[in-house]
């Protein structure tokens, strides 16, 4: 199915077939080549006319900075540079973005409108508290929604991303264990967990041990029970897990962990699949972070900003970080070190109160959807993923499809590909078809994994277009179409040498030698 099914196009003069006209600029009409910033602006020029400072004495005592070799560009030059580059990028505003475990969903423009209201957008974290009562109410209300949606006891709002939230949750768990004089050394992490989980546990000073997955892609409950003991501090579980499957034994897992004196951390990155349907508090979870930039539609990618509030059980809540917002009479106050009294808080994770711009967006999303709308979000996200799973399973090996429906993401393996063709080749082929590839080679429990998360954002038509392209490329991989190894053929750049880039990264620009013996990118081994 072509994207222009009627085939209409304006009439053009005939060009002889195979006649490829080279342009002198390298541009192809609206497909523009773009040099580096360093190649546009010279380091000895300034893009803005400023009168020279003259000989006014400086008061820097000889500490003036010399040249830092930054190119001088005018505003239109800079604007054009980034606009041109942005046209070579792909984002959720452009099309399906099926990156598994990332929940790349549409960012509603209503959120943006709310976040730009001056009372939210222009507040400063050091303003007197009585001038930001509305902002504090917003934080408190968002926290209240998170508590009710998860069925937990309380929430820590300040962590600024998912992994930061994991760290917060695990620090609460560690503080709770230490408070009862029972510092333990080991954190168990199932194979189907997110990759950040073992990193977080190691960062907290714990020894990490793996728990295997069973044939159905779930945590092996017996293996977990066998490993529990007096040295285990916590189990970190991702539910739904990274195979896109719900852990039906979650309550039994939590009970076993609690009986052994340990606590349960749940990675909430996949909360989109169960929001409004399942309350993690009912499953015995002690701490779980929620990625506002996933489930609650705040912008995501390009490095943030994210927000990772952590919901906490009664057992670990007293150890939550400062500051937090508390109701006080008719208004709200911030609980800081000065007014926390006899607090058991483990300390502080950030200077201020969290990611205000994300709080307003997430709350706008919740209020505009309502509790029933959020439930439908989860249902539609799961429906879309199952639609992809069932439309693909005759062509691609779906290792867990036999164990029933998936949750918010569908997983496939590279089994059945022709010799020599790989998941990477298929992903590059999807780029040629105009789609961002799915998550690949993760989770590690599936060979050549392809993890597809369409989210509820996609319409049936949008999914059908993606599936048509996905099926076409999958067929090429099965049939051994060697041209797939060349993909992408039509991207602004062809396939990059990832191995060379990782082994010999060029991290700094170097001015080319005047004789042309080296280019700006010729530096080897880290660019010097």
């Amino acid at each position, binding site marked *: 199915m072509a994207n222009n099914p009627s085939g209409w196009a304006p009439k053009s003069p005939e060009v002889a077939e195979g006649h490829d006209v080279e342009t002198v600029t390298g541009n192809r009409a609206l497909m523009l080549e773009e040099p580096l910033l360093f190649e546009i602006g010279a380091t000895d020029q300034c893009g803005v006319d400023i009168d020279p400072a003259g000989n006014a004495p400086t008061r820097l005592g000889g500490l003036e900075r010399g040249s830092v070799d930054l190119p001088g560009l005018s505003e239109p030059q800079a604007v054009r540079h980034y606009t041109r580059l942005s046209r070579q990028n792909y984002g959720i505003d452009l099309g399906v973005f099926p990156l598994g475990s990332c929940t790349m969903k549409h960012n509603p423009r209503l959120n943006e409108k709310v976040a730009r209201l001056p009372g939210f957008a222009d507040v400063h974290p050091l303003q007197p508290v009585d001038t930001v009562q509305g902002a504090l109410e917003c934080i408190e209300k968002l926290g209240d929604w998170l508590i009710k949606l998860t069925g937990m006891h309380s929430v820590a709002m300040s962590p600024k991303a998912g992994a930061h939230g994991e760290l917060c949750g695990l620090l609460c768990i560690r503080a709770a264990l230490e408070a009862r004089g029972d510092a333990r050394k080991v954190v168990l992490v199932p194979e189907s967990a997110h990759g950040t989980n073992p990193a977080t546990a190691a960062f907290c000073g714990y020894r990490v041990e793996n728990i295997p997955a069973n044939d159905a892609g779930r945590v092996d409950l017996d293996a977990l029970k066998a490993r529990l003991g007096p040295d285990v501090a916590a189990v970190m579980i991702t539910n739904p897990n990274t195979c896109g499957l719900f852990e039906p034994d979650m309550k039994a897992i939590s009970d076993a962990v609690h009986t052994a004196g340990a606590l349960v951390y749940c990675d909430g990155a996949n909360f989109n699949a169960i929001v409004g349907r399942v309350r993690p508090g009912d499953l015995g979870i002690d701490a779980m972070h929620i990625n506002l930039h996933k489930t609650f539609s705040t912008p995501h990618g390009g490095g943030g900003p994210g927000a990772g509030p952590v919901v906490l059980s009664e057992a670990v809540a007293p150890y939550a970080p400062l500051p937090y917002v508390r109701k006080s009479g008719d208004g709200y106050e911030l609980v800081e070190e000065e007014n926390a009294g006899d607090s058991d808080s483990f300390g502080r994770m950030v200077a201020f109160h969290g990611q205000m711009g994300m709080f307003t967006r997430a709350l706008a999303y919740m209020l505009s959807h309502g509790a029933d709308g959020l439930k439908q979000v989860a249902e539609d996200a799961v429906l879309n993923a199952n639609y992809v799973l069932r439309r693909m399973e005759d062509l691609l090996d779906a290792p867990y499809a036999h164990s029933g429906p998936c949750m918010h993401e569908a997983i496939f393996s590279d089994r059945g590909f022709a010799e020599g063709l790989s998941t990477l080749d298929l992903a590059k082929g999807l780029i040629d078809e105009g789609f961002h590839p799915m998550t690949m*080679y993760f989770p*590690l429990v599936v060979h050549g994994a392809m993890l597809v998360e369409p989210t509820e954002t996609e319409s049936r038509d949008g999914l059908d277009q993606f599936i048509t392209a996905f099926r076409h490329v999958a067929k090429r991989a099965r049939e051994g179409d060697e041209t797939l190894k060349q993909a992408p053929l039509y991207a602004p750049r062809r396939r990059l040498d*990832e*191995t060379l880039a*990782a*082994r010999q990264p060029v991290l700094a620009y170097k001015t080319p030698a005047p004789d042309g013996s080296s280019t700006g990118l010729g530096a080897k081994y880290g660019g010097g």
Partner: protein
Amino acid sequence: MSLYFTKEHEWLRVDGDVAVVGISKHAAEALGDIVFAETPEAGRDLSKGDDAAVVESVKAASDVYAPASGEVLEGNEALADNPGLVNEDPEGEGWFFKMKLANQGELDGMMDEAAYRAWCETL
């Protein structure tokens, strides 16, 4: 000198009580192009199953476990500059570390080359 393999796809070339340890050809191929390898420092005491080294490819990062207990004698410094050695010659020049075995009995449960290659075929 004899060669042993583990189910974690490590090999040991044992001479007396000294073993050279690396990852198998099968493991190197599964990982893809290796872009980083971290080997243990001499003098480190390893227990069987400990994380001994780290290997990172374009696809994945994973730990190399200590296949047996003992003291590290030497890490392969060539891997720092040229991690691609693990792909080029996984069971030779691409070795990870040498260790002094504390307990030769730990070799008993391991596979010989023929058994290991046959087992890989079943994966």
